[in-house]
């Protein structure tokens, strides 16, 4: 049987390879939107922040730190996805020209 750490390390290794392969193919044209997108995705730490804040019997310190963490992460999620989409909308092919 694998313990949690081993499973985690497997997941980490595989995800890193997938990440490297997928990102390598991204056209340099889109590197800035890519970074905004990964930024939004890495704000997945919101999950950890919610769990910490919402844990039964959480201390005031946990709640305050968790509150700031959720706020920061949600800011990233919302602004990250929206601005990526805003940027991508601007990338047009020639045919669209009026």
């Amino acid at each position, binding site marked *: 049987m694998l313990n949690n750490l081993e499973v985690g390390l497997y997941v980490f290794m595989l995800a890193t390879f997938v990440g490297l392969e997928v990102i390598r193919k991204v056209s340099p044209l889109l590197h800035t939107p890519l970074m905004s997108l990964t930024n939004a995705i*890495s704000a997945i730490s919101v999950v950890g922040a919610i769990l910490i804040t919402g844990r039964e019997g959480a201390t005031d310190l946990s709640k305050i730190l968790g509150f700031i963490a959720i706020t920061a992460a949600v800011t990233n999620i919302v602004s990250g996805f929206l601005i990526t989409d805003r940027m991508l909308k601007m990338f047009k092919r020639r045919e669209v020209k009026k």
Partner: protein
Amino acid sequence: MGYIYILSAALFILSLKWMNHPPTARRGVFAGEIGMLLAVVGTLVGGHVMNWTWVMAAIVLGSAIGAPIAYIMPMTAVPQRTAMSHACGALAAALVGTAEFYAGQHEPGRLTTMMMVPLILETLLGYLTFTGSLMAMGKLQEILPSRPITYKNQNVINAVLFAIAVALGVRLIMVPTDTLLFPIFAGLSLLFGVLLIIPIGGADMPTVIALLNSYAGLSACAMGFALDNNLLIVAGALDGSSGLILSIIMCKAMNRSFTNVLFGAFGQIQAAKTTGGEQRNYRSASAEEAAAILEAASSVIIVPGYGLAVAQAQHKIRELYDNLMRRGIDVKFAIHPVAGRMPGHMNVLLAEADIPYDKLIEMDEINGEFPQCDVALVIGANDVTNPAARSDESSPIYGMPILDVDKAHTVMVIKRSMSPGFAGIDNDLYYMDKTLMLFGDAKAFVSEIVKELPAKAAA
């Protein structure tokens, strides 16, 4: 809950995959949004969440801050926003780690070594990325001086500080009950983040941002190990590897070794040797002459650089582009990987000005076209066009990949003055017989050229 996380992880990977090409990229964003929504809702519903007021208030507040940022932010400020967002992400990770550490004090046996190792990594990376990103943002926004700030024994001091922080971290891993040490550890991490970034100059910002991106991802990843949550590990690893790839690309484009960057030892190439005071001859031209040359050309390659972004000239460039295209002149844009202030920034700026993205050509592809090109118009780019990078081994930028502008039949350079660029070196390109210097502000000069063009067509 676990199944929702698996779905969400798959959506993140798809999201990045669709990001590969412009036509599917927006679908990629959508996939990412759904993945995130699933993860958040799944956690709220299945995570035994109490303290709803705190959680919901924070989510509402975060959305209220995030949405306006996304819409108000001008495209030239995207690098600052990205730096800020690295800071927010890293802060979130660091604070969760801190909260976890103190909460663990109340439950004996919770803070095992297997828990403490990732937790310490998470807080160390989180805090240093937080302050580091704030510094980067300050430099990009020009609140802080963008030139490198250096002092004696900088690398030694940084290394010692970092070593102390790591030593404290190790001590905390072994004795997790030592709550007094934790604030010192956190403080040192914060301080190290500041010291890591201040010696870095404005020209290196694309690499730094990519690197901080990677750190922020890794810290989210470490959180995944601490909280035993595979979704966090996947998302963090994706972000980490993305940042890593981008910083490697940037390093290659700037001719710096990756180890240099990892230890924050950039800025080492200080203003290099100034070429002996001899006066060299160059030719300059007026907007009218430039317009005449452009009109006679059949193919033009525009080389935009950082100066174009500073002068906010992208919309004027678009007018020039339209005008030349209407005359049947083939116009392309040559994009150096470090053009702009973060990876791919120049593409976004030109796309915002409605220039079709299939006209934005990367360095490797366009370099073969310069010898057949009638006119290369360089706007606000300097070091990336310097032929010394190919030929002069004593030059500090020797080996840096450049755009082969000097191979075009005619070269025109719009520039404020003859002053050298970031690297502080003279550019031989400006003294070639086929080069015309066009002195002036990029935006003003381009609009003058555009003004000259229609008049000629009518005549």
